[in-house]
């Protein structure tokens, strides 16, 4: 067991080695080999982590292992740099390495022929390193450091084809919007450090537990919300989600790895990690943000016609599910969905990449159709992923979404005023099934609407479809398992009720103590209605047990409704080009109106707000940089100089250069002195 952290640290450093090699020797190593190098290192890392995970699961393990080394001292506080491994870390680490391995291999095929092929793998390696560091990190500061680094990699990779102004703009936008969240994240860290004197997660929790915030609950809420805003930026939650659709300018493997499976999920991971210190109010705030996000983006996904943008909005929506789950106290459900989503969304993106690759860069689903004939493997795997995300029973997404809905229902059941927190995800479940099936049908079935695209479409090479197959298997099976009947840390932990599978592994890491749970049981805090209501949220997971069946029924009904509608549209569409008109006459119209409104709101109001604030900052900048600084401050300075000059000019008038005038002045002065002397005596 002692070797465990070091094995993971080794696996973590492998991509860094790849990065360093490729930075300095990338161009020498050349096109295919640099890809194989990076992918080889990644697969090794995945193998190490799989072995580690196996050992962890089957040979017993402590609750967590921590290794740290003295790094620096902040003022008088010693700050350690360390890794912390618990079940959640194991799960995340393994997920990241496995998904990344698939995507690395896929990229060798996808990026074939790109002039900056080695560069691509340089960035990917750096990203893998940073993401794994984020997962391993044991402190808020460590999280923040790798948080920024994954953002940097995202910046580079979105702007990978920087010749396109759209890509360069999207990269910049992604980074700056994320920085807004990071800024608040930093403030959250500052609050935590200021109040508890610790930055490690365990240190912070124990300090908070011992009453570091006693009497300052509002500050603790504020700290939680500030930390959450880091997640809002990174996980593309309302209102900072505007960067993610634009980020689709990056190469598709990047969208799969960074903007679907791993980096955007880091926000959820962060909320999961800091979950113990979130107050009931903060949790409620988080839940509503998740709710707004998931329904809004699901609506927008309905009307998108760009294959990657549909998936992007779907990602935002699914992340909203996870955030909502955490907000209503479904800690396990949220993180469980994170893992399953990573598998099937990566698969969806890789599938879309395969389509785009096969159709020579075409991304508009209106021009596709009947691609099933041309690319059967892609089509089948895409269908698997669609089933998973839609929540078809026995596919992974079914289990995790069901867990979320059960938590939400459990929460809403106890707190009737927050019924919306169940209605929204239930509605969105139907919408998800609808837009995903629509996407699948329009792309792979119906008729070929653009003969040119159809004629030239082809299945992708083996390097690309093998990862698809691996991910498809994961998308089905990863969700199988059973929750343990009792929570980890429960005194009455009965041996007979142990669960199995991924979900039970995640459940092991569930924090035993939380601020919100504390607030509920002791009731020592100011028990405002909202606070006390939400405080029981952390027990929603317990409560969720009773709600699994109704939630499953609701979710399945919603899914079936969505599937039915999509099927209806498909049937009607089968021989038609103009599905937009058809949309209008069907009873989907209402939903579409809402969707259009959502899109309008997103594009015009929110994006406008983002762009507008950028423009406002720019205007302020131009004012202060050009007008204020040059005319104002510098003008003042030059004004002083000019005044001095004017004074000099005034004095010049007396200097006529004529001796007579000087003498007159001399004589007058002398006479005055004499008169003065006489007068004084």
């Amino acid at each position, binding site marked *: 067991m002692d070797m465990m952290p070091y094995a993971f640290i080794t696996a973590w450093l492998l991509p860094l080695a790849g990065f360093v090699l490729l930075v300095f020797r990338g161009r020498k190593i050349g096109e295919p080999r640099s890809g194989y190098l990076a992918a080889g290192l990644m697969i090794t890392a995945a193998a190490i982590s799989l072995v580690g995970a196996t050992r962890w699961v089957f040979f017993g393990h402590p609750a967590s292992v921590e290794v740290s080394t003295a790094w620096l001292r902040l003022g008088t506080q010693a700050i350690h740099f360390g890794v912390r491994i618990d079940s959640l870390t194991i799960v995340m680490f393994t997920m990241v390495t496995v998904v990344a391995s698939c995507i690395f291999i896929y990229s060798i095929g996808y990026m074939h022929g790109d002039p900056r092929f080695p560069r691509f793998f340089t960035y990917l390696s750096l990203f893998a390193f940073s993401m794994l560091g984020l997962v391993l990190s044991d402190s808020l500061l460590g999280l923040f450091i790798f948080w920024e680094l994954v953002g940097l990699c995202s910046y580079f990779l979105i702007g990978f084809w920087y010749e396109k102004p759209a890509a360069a703009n999207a990269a910049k936008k992604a980074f700056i919007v994320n920085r807004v969240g990071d800024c608040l994240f930093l403030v959250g860290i500052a609050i935590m450090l200021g109040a508890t004197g610790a930055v490690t997660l365990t240190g912070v929790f124990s300090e908070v537990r011992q009453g570091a915030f006693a009497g300052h609950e509002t500050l603790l809420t504020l700290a939680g919300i500030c930390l959450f805003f880091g997640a809002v930026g990174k996980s593309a939650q309302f209102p900072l989600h505007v960067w993610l659709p634009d980020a689709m300018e990056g190469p598709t493997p990047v969208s799969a790895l960074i903007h679907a499976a791993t980096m955007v999920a880091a926000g959820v991971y962060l909320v999961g990690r800091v979950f113990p210190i979130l107050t009931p109010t903060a949790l409620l705030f988080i839940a509503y943000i998740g709710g707004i996000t998931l329904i809004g983006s699901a609506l927008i996904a309905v009307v998108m016609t760009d294959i990657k943008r549909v998936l992007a909005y779907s990602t935002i929506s699914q992340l909203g599910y996870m955030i909502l789950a955490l907000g209503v106290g479904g800690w396990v459900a949220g993180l469980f969905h994170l893992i399953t989503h990573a598998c099937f969304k990566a698969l969806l993106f890789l599938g879309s990449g395969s389509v785009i690759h096969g159709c020579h860069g075409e991304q508009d689903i209106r021009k596709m159709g009947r691609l099933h004939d041309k690319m059967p493997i892609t089509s089948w795997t895409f269908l698997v992923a669609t089933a998973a995300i839609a929540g078809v029973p026995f596919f992974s997404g079914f289990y995790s979404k069901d867990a979320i809905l059960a938590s939400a229902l459990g929460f809403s059941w106890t707190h009737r005023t927050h019924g919306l927190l169940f209605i929204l995800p239930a509605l969105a479940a139907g919408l998800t099934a609808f837009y995903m099936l629509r996407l699948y049908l329009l792309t792979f079935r119906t008729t070929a609407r653009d003969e040119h695209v159809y004629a030239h479409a082809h299945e992708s090479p083996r390097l690309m479809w093998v990862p698809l197959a691996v991910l498809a298997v994961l998308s089905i099976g990863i969700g199988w398992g059973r929750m343990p009947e009792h929570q980890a840390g429960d005194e009455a932990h009965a041996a007979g009720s142990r669960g199995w599978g991924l979900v039970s592994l995640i459940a092991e890491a569930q924090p035993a103590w939380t601020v919100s749970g504390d607030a509920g049981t002791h009731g020592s805090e100011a028990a405002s209605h909202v606070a006390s209501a939400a405080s029981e949220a952390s027990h929603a997971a317990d409560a969720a047990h009773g709600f699994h069946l109704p939630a499953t029924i609701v979710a399945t009904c919603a899914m079936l409704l969505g599937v039915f509608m999509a099927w209806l549209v498909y049937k009607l569409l089968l021989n038609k080009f103009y599905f937009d008109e058809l949309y209008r006459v069907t009873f989907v119209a209402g939903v579409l109106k809402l969707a259009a409104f959502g899109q309008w709101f997103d594009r015009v109001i929110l994006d406008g707000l983002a762009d507008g604030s950028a423009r406002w900052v720019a205007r302020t900048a131009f004012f202060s940089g050009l007008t204020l600084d040059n005319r104002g401050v510098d003008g003042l300075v030059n004004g002083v100089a000019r005044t001095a000059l004017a004074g000099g000019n005034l004095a*010049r008038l007396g200097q006529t*250069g004529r*001796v*007579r005038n000087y003498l007159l002045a001399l004589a007058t002065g002398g006479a005055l002195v004499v008169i003065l002397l006489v007068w004084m005596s």
Partner: protein
Amino acid sequence: MMGPMPYVILSVLLLVLGLAIVISKRNAIVMLIGVEFILNAAALNLVAFSRHGAGDLSGQTAALFVIVIASAEAVVALAIFLNFYHRIATVDIDRGDQLRG
């Protein structure tokens, strides 16, 4: 016995006359004459006060110095004016205002 008063009055007259000439005239030569007036006013004072006050010859000695310096000064001044005349072809010193601010 006359006191020093008449000499002083004469000396003041000389000084004022000299100053008036120096200030109002533009001709360099005439200005030089004015300067001589001023110097001689000073010399007259020295002699007069020496004669009526100190009783020794210090005033007379100083007056001699004044006379010597006046002649030296006249030489230097005339040399400057000659140069001035060479450059500007006039002895109107208002034309030599290159040093004006």
